[in-house]
């Protein structure tokens, strides 16, 4: 099994890159859900972010502009969702699903002219000295800006939610919007902001896919990662720290199964393809066995429509 150990460093390095889109999208969704809004449209927002980022990078030649525009595209998609569900009081689940379908189709339409166009990959930031460390160097210190952004956002989101007053207010709205409204907080206003943040993060996740992971545009290139991100939010019981672990677990299993095949180990490839999803389902089932824990951790007003009684 020395061969497996030799592969460990590249597997871990690849795991971090594979986990990044999941992490970015899921962090955005955590904030959205903590405010009480269930946005199932992550996949659609990711795809629109991916195509927008790609299109802008192709036309302007700047990755930074592409990333910025991808986040903006995500915000616009999220605003559509927010308007429909928060102002027009539409059903959040149905609207989220519709947003996914819409985003998938819209991204395919926008992307038609860009398929087959190659662009340079988002460059890796090589931190002098750190990148050359023998084992840890390639794993931790040779990634591009968005990977580091994802890792930094774990800390930032955690800090925001649990160590700031604004985060407390957001969580309060997610737990009991009636009470928060009674105290005088703007439930709709804060939820709008939370949904927009979720959209921006999903857009960034999409941009990572089309600018760094595989620098190209292909229809449906997120391949279900948006749904995995949604599952990861529950998997992590809405805690950013656990989200990182969940994303890494999924990334690890996805990459390891490819390495296992390449090494010629005798496990059927179809089973290995299923593994990441099986692992996620397994952990979700484990967590859900304890119904109280889910109830304790899930925002109490998740998915509930807010009718101000004033």
């Amino acid at each position, binding site marked *: 099994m020395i061969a497996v150990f030799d592969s460990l460093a590249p597997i871990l390095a690849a795991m971090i890159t594979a986990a990044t889109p999941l992490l970015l999208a899921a962090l955005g969704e955590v904030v959205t859900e903590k405010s009480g809004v269930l946005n199932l449209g992550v996949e659609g927002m990711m795809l629109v972010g991916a195509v927008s980022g790609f299109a802008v990078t192709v036309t302007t030649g700047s990755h930074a502009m592409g990333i910025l525009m991808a986040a903006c595209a995500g915000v616009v998609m999220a605003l559509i969702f927010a308007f429909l569900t928060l102002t027009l009081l539409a059903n959040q689940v149905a609207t989220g699903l519709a947003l996914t379908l819409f985003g998938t189709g819209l991204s395919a339409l926008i992307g038609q002219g860009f398929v087959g166009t190659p662009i340079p990959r988002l460059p890796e930031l090589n931190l002098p000295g750190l990148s050359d460390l023998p084992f840890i160097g390639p794993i931790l210190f040779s990634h591009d800006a968005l990977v580091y952004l994802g890792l930094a956002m774990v800390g930032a989101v955690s800090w925001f939610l649990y160590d700031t007053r604004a985060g407390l207010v957001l969580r309060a709205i997610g737990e009991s919007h009636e009470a928060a409204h009674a105290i005088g907080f703007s439930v709709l206003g804060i939820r709008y902001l939370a949904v927009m943040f979720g959209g921006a993060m999903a857009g960034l996740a999409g941009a990572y896919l089309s600018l760094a992971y595989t620098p190209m545009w292909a229809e449906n290139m997120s391949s279900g990662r948006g749904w995995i991100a949604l599952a990861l939010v529950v998997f992590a019981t809405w805690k950013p720290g656990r989200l990182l672990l969940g994303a890494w677990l999924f990334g690890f299993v996805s990459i390891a199964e490819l390495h296992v095949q*390449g090494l010629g180990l005798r496990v059927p490839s179809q089973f290995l393809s299923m593994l990441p999803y099986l692992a996620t389902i397994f952990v979700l089932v484990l967590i859900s066995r304890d119904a109280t824990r889910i109830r304790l951790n899930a925002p109490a007003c998740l998915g509930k429509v807010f009718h101000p009684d004033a």
Partner: protein
Amino acid sequence: MNRRTFHKTLAGLAGAAAVLALTAGGTSHASAADKLKVGFVYVGPISDHGYSYQHDLGRQAVVKEFGDKVETTFVENVPEGADAERVVEQLASSGHKLIFTTSFGFMNPTLKVAQRHPEVFFEHATGYKRSANLATYAARFYEGRTVVGLIAGKLTKSNIIGYVASHPIPEVISGINAFTLALREVNPKAEVRVIWVNSWYDPGKEAAAAKALIDQGADVILQHTDSPAPVQAAEERGLWSVGQSSDMTRFGPKSHLTAIVDDWSGYYTARVKAVMDGTWKSQDTWGGFKDKMLYLAPYNPAIPKDVVALAETARQNIIEGKRHPFQGPIKDQSGKEILAQGKTLTDEQILKMDYYVEGVQGQIPR
């Protein structure tokens, strides 16, 4: 007006509408008889710039050749399975007289629709089931793999070749085997590692698979999947790659050695003509370099001249029948000889191939 009158008027209108529709349908049928409607079903997007794109180029050749006499319809991104049957049925029921279904997984859906529509002609790519109105066609992709195997054998330094494969069907397996046989002919120490991504088109997974193979030491990346992701992955690490189905040079200008490109234009125009002339018959067409159903993209200028010469000689020999991609001796993975010197595998044996030859690591997933 009372209810009775209302119902009578409604019935009258409906009747009039029905008569109108029938006559209108009749007249349009008369003019449609002049135009041959040809349908194309693609498994991926034509923007894949790969497999489905090449099929669409074939369709465009038909349009160019026959102009006003044909009307073509294409449906892309059709998943293999039940949805495919719906799409083929819709084409068959809407006046299309010739329908091309371009992926292996469309085999059973096409057969079912063909049985229900004996007046329509069906052409299924890369399959093996035929009927009176269902023909099959494919290109001998493995001929291209032989030539590429010789190039890879000469250029590899690590003696490990990475192969990003899609589904474990005989077409893909025979490609891997033909490649490996040629590879080890010029480099007996080289080995091939295969990763099955279980999809024809999934750029993220293909890229991850290519990178995993590279991390395990491969310095030439082959693929039987339709996106340029593996070529890109090889380009980034400064290694070699071979494109699939169409020229993928712009995704890997330094790494792209060549590509095995499908060319369906000749076949498609010939079949459309056969329907127009009334000479269409169900048959199996399996063309290679000789029949111009496939060709190799321009060689990377970085390939040494003697390697190019070796490759070109092999290609010519295949065209002239002097070299067969599956000529003996062939040993399977356990070292047992399954084909003696001087013999060649029959078409039927190639179509049913379900084993790896010596030099390929791992097992075929069942």
